[in-house]
């Protein structure tokens, strides 16, 4: 009897001691777990093999940004970013529709990528140094060169932001938008009152009621907002000025070079195709092109130096005809742009090919 009670007390004391020292124990277990995870990372096979084995691409996207990714009532994802998901699926799996579009909140997107919920993010994400560095992500070829712009009402009479002195500019909170706007006002010597709101619905109300003269956000986002104006898109004007750099690019997890290269060349294929004027409609006519570079690109056979018929395998781990599949099933960059962004009134601008004075430039495929 006595002994049992002694045991109870001893157990309680042990618990106290254990609680007091448990932190050290935790440190070691956590460190060990981290080591194990690191070791696992090195042995891990590339996502490329995983995606091929799975037969489906998990692509992180969103559900309601007009022009970039919209979930329709039929359950399809339509938009510029969604089409780049299809481009990757067409290149890797040969089927543009083998995509699982995963809708992500802005705040969750990097976590989803880090935890492996998605294979790739194609979700109008600005490439910045700190995201590249501290989110564990690798940014690939920029699909859209964006910048912060300004929207005003059509009857305001402003032709550019330099005309806007002594005005109120409304922005969304939680991004660098208000900092960019304040810096631009300082640079131009203008007196702006920048009012940050929690979300776009509140800004829409304030803008509609005339509390704000200007609405500043990424130009592409403004274009979508303009299309949704209650008084129609012509009631507002997006000024030509752009005052920040917002390169939007797809991204994959750090440390998986094979997968990053595969995704990157899938995107580059859309640019290369536009350079050559290859579209989804005429791609078949290029299969027997006289230009052997085009035949190499499309995975068609060509004559090598020994006179043998062969196809080029660049060693990217992609099928030799990946570019053909991308263009046939989805289209080249210009087609994707014209399908989703041109109807909103967006010009090609800096997103034109380098041959047209834009920034799009693909390394040669050979």
């Amino acid at each position: 009897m006595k002994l049992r009670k002694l045991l109870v007390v001893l157990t309680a004391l042990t618990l106290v001691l254990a609680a007091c020292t448990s932190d050290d124990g935790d440190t070691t277990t956590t460190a060990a777990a981290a080591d194990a995870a690191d070791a696992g990372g090195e042995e891990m096979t590339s996502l490329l093999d995983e995606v091929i084995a799975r037969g489906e691409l998990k692509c992180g996207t969103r559900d309601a940004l007009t022009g970039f990714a919209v979930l329709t009532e039929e359950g399809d994802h339509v938009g510029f970013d969604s089409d780049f998901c299809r481009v990757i699926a067409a290149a890797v799996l040969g089927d543009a529709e083998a995509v699982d579009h995963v809708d992500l909140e802005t705040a969750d997107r990097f976590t989803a990528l880090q935890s492996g919920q998605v294979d790739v993010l194609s979700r109008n994400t600005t490439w910045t140094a700190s995201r590249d560095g501290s989110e564990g992500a690798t940014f690939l070829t920029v699909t859209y060169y964006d910048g912060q712009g300004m929207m005003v009402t059509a009857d305001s009479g402003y032709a550019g932001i330099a005309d806007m002195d002594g005005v109120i500019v409304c922005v969304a909170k939680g991004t660098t938008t208000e900092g960019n706007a304040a810096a631009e006002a300082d640079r131009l010597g203008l007196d702006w009152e920048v009012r940050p709101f929690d979300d776009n619905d509140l800004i829409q109300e304030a803008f509609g009621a005339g509390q704000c003269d200007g609405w500043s956000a990424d130009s592409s986002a403004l274009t979508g907002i303009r299309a949704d104006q209650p008084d129609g898109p012509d009631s507002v004007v997006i000024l030509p000025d752009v005052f920040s750099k917002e390169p939007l690019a797809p991204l994959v997890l750090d440390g998986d070079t094979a997968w990053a290269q595969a995704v990157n060349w899938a995107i580059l294929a859309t640019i290369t195709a536009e350079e050559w004027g290859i579209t989804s409609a005429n791609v078949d006519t290029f299969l027997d092109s006289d230009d052997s570079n085009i035949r190499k690109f499309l995975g068609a056979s060509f004559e090598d130096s020994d006179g043998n018929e062969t196809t080029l395998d660049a060693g990217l781990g992609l099928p030799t005809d990946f570019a053909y599949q991308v263009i046939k099933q989805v289209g080249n960059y210009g087609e994707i742009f014209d399908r989703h962004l041109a109807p909103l009134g967006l010009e090609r601008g800096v997103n034109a090919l380098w041959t047209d004075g834009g920034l799009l430039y693909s390394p040669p495929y050979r």
Partner: protein
Amino acid sequence: MTTPAPQSRPPFYRDVRILSWAFQLLVFGLIAAVVYWLFGNFQRNTADSGIPTNFDFLANPASFAIPGADFDSNESVRNAYVVGILNTIRVAVVGIILATILGILIGIGRLSKNWVVRKITTVYVEVLRNLPLLVIMTFTFLGVVLQVLPRIENSWVPLGLLVVSNRGIGVPWYQDASGLSLLLVLFVGFLGWWLIARWRHSVSDRTGEASRASLYGGGFFIAVLVIGWLLLGASYTLPVVDGKQIAGGIRIDPSYFAVLIALVIYTASHIAEIVRGSIQAVPLGQGEAATALALSGFQRMWNVVLPQAMRIAIPPLGNQYLNLIKNSSLGAGFAYFELTNVTQVTVGNGSPAVPAFTLALVFYIVLSLIASSFVNLANRRFKLVER
């Protein structure tokens, strides 16, 4: 026969003093271990991801401007915090004063003999007390400020004195007067008011003539304001519409207006219930005695019932004041740059989140402690002296 067991201490595992100590040690040890573990996790994770945990960011340029304040984007984050705290105090102090006045009026109205007044105040209390404050604030911003107030182009200019628009309300103001001199004038005025009121009360106590403290004191206060205005140069500016802005006078920020109105009408509904309960807690005999002395209804309420009711009401009123201070953080969603909004915006512009919010947390605690010490002071001053 056996001899009774000798009186001795029980074994330690049955000694209630040792056991209770052991148990408290156990609880303390568990809590300390959990806190230590969480803090260790926090330090390790922030170190892993290279997130700073010190307060060096306070010296960085803020890189955002604050509307309605003399603050540009090159000033430091520290100064932005100062502006944020002052804005929180501004909305809290004015809100507490207005909510108290409105709350007392409605609380009295709840007990009115007038059927219409009683029903209207009851509906007011029951509606506002049962709505979330965020909903009320969204309504005062979207519904009242944005939709009821006119656009700047069509602003109302009653008598040429005010400019009312959804970009703010311009009111006439001293010109060129520094805030300090204004505060000095106000201080002299209130001090004089208080001294005169004391003097009149003592006269009243000695001679029995009516004290009329508010009349004399208030008159002195207004006289001081007028003389102060003349001394400060007798200058004033009227607000005018200048393009898209209100120039001259002083501008009440539209977000401040919306946040203030929401805080006042919401808190007043709670204060009204406290006042009603406190009035009902005053013994009926007090009011009946006042009536027997032929005091008017106002005199009965103002001189007999309310002073005793407010004594009961002070501690719960203090809770409402603390709630109002903390609820002012909801203004962050409506472009009002109080403490929470400054913290959120500075985090969005590159300040580390954990230290930034820790700072906000500390400021709120300090503000609340200051407010509750004022309430305790008032409570000590007014409570019944028990002998």
